[in-house]
């Protein structure tokens, strides 16, 4: 399968082909050192930067350029969470735990090699279920990694776990050179935990209630400490469940920071009766976009926050926010026969990105200094929604956007603070009014929306809703454009030509979080 990729086709202006969708990047303009995973090489030890720079989940900057792939080899689990129902499997859904095809380690290896041939941005292979990667002895997980380390040693390995079995496997994890581990930690207090976990299976017994939550908590903390003391990077995922653990997650943030977690990823609960989960069926709601952002902001200064997580399926393939999993079904992989692993395209791509990134850091810093000088610090930051296909550019049409990336821009600089999934407004040429309403509610807290292009109708509706559609930065870099816009905005505000948009909230869409490519 000769797959000669032209770098222009990947990174050229507006024509980000192979890379369908990657969010924003490093906020070099962040004044404090706590601006989350957007940190660049200046913010961390060189050996840590080496580990994260090409990992789309561990480095926000990398997530504009690099792709990950999950292989669903671990269907068994050892606990029950109230937000999970493992019977549910729908290929239109995108949530952790959901998967369309379960793979054997052999099938997984072939799939990885096939994907690596077609997606040179692939840098990370993760095992995230659909159950727990370390349940059932972690057999399939380690088998897959063992084969992979021989065949494709340049791919990074990472795994996700609920932590219950983690202490038993830390040595194996270290032996296989797995340098990224994600632990889902929703509580550090069993009183809270008993409302999230109905039972766990541990030491040959099913435990329930407080006992279950207590054991799980102790095992999670022990596993976390064991990993960080070995220098393995740990990301902690937490599901924000309003009324159950929302405020408590600040304590979780402190607890995991003190034990050396590298990143903390607070994700909204995805809850819908149709998913058949306990929370879905009992009407437990997920947070709004502003509730999530406020909590994330309150945690700044503690363990660094990840805000670009797309809550991917356990078989997701591609850049974050896109999912090309359906292009690589078992049937198709088997039909491809033996696939050779050729690192050439990936190496060329990585070199190109290195060069591109070096220039970007300097340009962002300059734009930020300019704003700091001209605007001063009195103006409140604003949110901007951006339609992008990746490469840190404004290069998507409003009507084609499947998600908007949210940037906060103010006197201290521009930084990525989140993303909002939407239904495409324009499918097959004509605009869909329902979808437009959905887009408006998803970005209702934003002052402006940056697009490569936008039609007259939606443009009018946006203005009516108080959101300014902006296409004058088409195909430019996101952060510099946001800063330029902010400068202009501050000036208009000063002249009284416009009012600040405050106190708005937005809705988090609970359906598929990851766009499937058409």
């Amino acid at each position, binding site marked *: 399968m000769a797959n000669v990729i032209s770098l222009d086709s990947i990174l050229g202006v507006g024509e980000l082909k192979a890379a369908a969708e990657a969010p924003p990047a490093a906020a070099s303009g962040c004044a404090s050192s706590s601006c989350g995973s957007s940190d660049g090489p200046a913010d961390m030890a060189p050996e840590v930067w080496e580990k994260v720079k090409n990992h789309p989940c561990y480095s926000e900057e990398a997530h504009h350029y690099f792709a990950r792939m999950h292989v669903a080899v671990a*269907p*068994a*689990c*050892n606990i*029950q969470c109230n937000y999970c129902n*493992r*019977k549910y499997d729908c290929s239109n859904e995108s949530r952790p735990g959901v998967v369309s095809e*379960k793979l054997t380690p052999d099938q997984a290896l072939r799939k990885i090699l096939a994907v690596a041939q077609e997606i040179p941005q692939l840098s990370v292979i993760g095992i995230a279920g659909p*159950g727990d990667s370390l*349940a*059932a*002895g972690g*057999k399939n997980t380690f088998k897959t990694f063992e084969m992979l380390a021989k065949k494709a040693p340049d791919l990074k390995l990472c795994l996700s776990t609920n932590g219950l079995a983690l202490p038993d496997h830390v040595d194996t994890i270290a032996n296989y050179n797995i340098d990224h581990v994600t632990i889902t930690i929703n509580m550090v207090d069993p009183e809270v935990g008993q409302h999230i976990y109905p039972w766990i*299976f541990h030491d*040959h*017994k*099913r435990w329930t209630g407080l006992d279950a939550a207590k054991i799980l908590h102790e095992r999670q903390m022990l596993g976390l400490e064991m990993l960080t003391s070995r220098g393995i990077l740990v990301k902690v995922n937490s599901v924000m469940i309003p009324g159950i653990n929302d405020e408590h997650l600040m304590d979780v943030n402190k607890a995991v920071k003190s034990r050396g977690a590298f990143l903390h990823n607070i994700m909204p609960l995805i809850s819908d009766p149709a998913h058949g989960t306990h929370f879905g069926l009992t009407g437990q709601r997920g947070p709004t976009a502003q509730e999530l952002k406020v909590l994330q902001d309150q945690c700044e200064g503690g363990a660094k926050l990840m805000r670009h997580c797309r809550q991917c399926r356990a078989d997701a393939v591609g850049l974050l926010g896109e999912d090309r999993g359906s292009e690589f079904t078992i049937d198709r992989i088997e039909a491809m026969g033996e696939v050779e692993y050729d690192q050439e395209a990936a190496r060329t791509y990585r070199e190109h990105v290195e060069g591109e990134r070096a220039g970007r850091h300097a340009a962002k810093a300059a734009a930020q200094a300019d704003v700091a000088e001209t605007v001063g610090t009195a103006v409140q930051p604003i949110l901007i929604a951006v339609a992008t296909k990746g490469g840190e550019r404004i290069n998507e049409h409003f009507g084609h956007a499947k998600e908007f990336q949210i940037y906060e821009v103010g006197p201290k600089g521009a930084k990525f603070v989140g993303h909002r999934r939407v239904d495409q407004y324009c499918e097959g040429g004509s605009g869909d009014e329902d979808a437009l309403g959905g887009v408006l509610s998803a970005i209702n807290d934003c002052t402006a929306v940056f697009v490569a292009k936008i039609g007259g109708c939606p443009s009018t509706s946006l203005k009516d809703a108080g959101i300014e559609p902006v296409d004058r930065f088409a195909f430019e870099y996101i952060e510099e454009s946001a800063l330029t816009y902010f400068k202009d905005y501050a000036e208009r505000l000063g002249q009284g030509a416009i009012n600040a948009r405050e106190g708005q909230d937005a809705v988090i869409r609970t359906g598929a979080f990851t766009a499937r490519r058409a």
Partner: protein
Amino acid sequence: MAYKIKASDCTACGACEAECPNNAISFKKGAYAINADLCTECKGQFSSPQCASVCPADCCVPA
């Protein structure tokens, strides 16, 4: 005496297979099943049948 798997509820996750102390559970013809000749209900080995304790779908039941 033995346990069986209610196939209609099984998610085919394989958690039970990994826990059975007697290798009584295997994946055959697209479904997990318990070999009644090998199943001891975990008597004398554990305080509860391991398959039933780990099963997320509560579908490991007395035959």
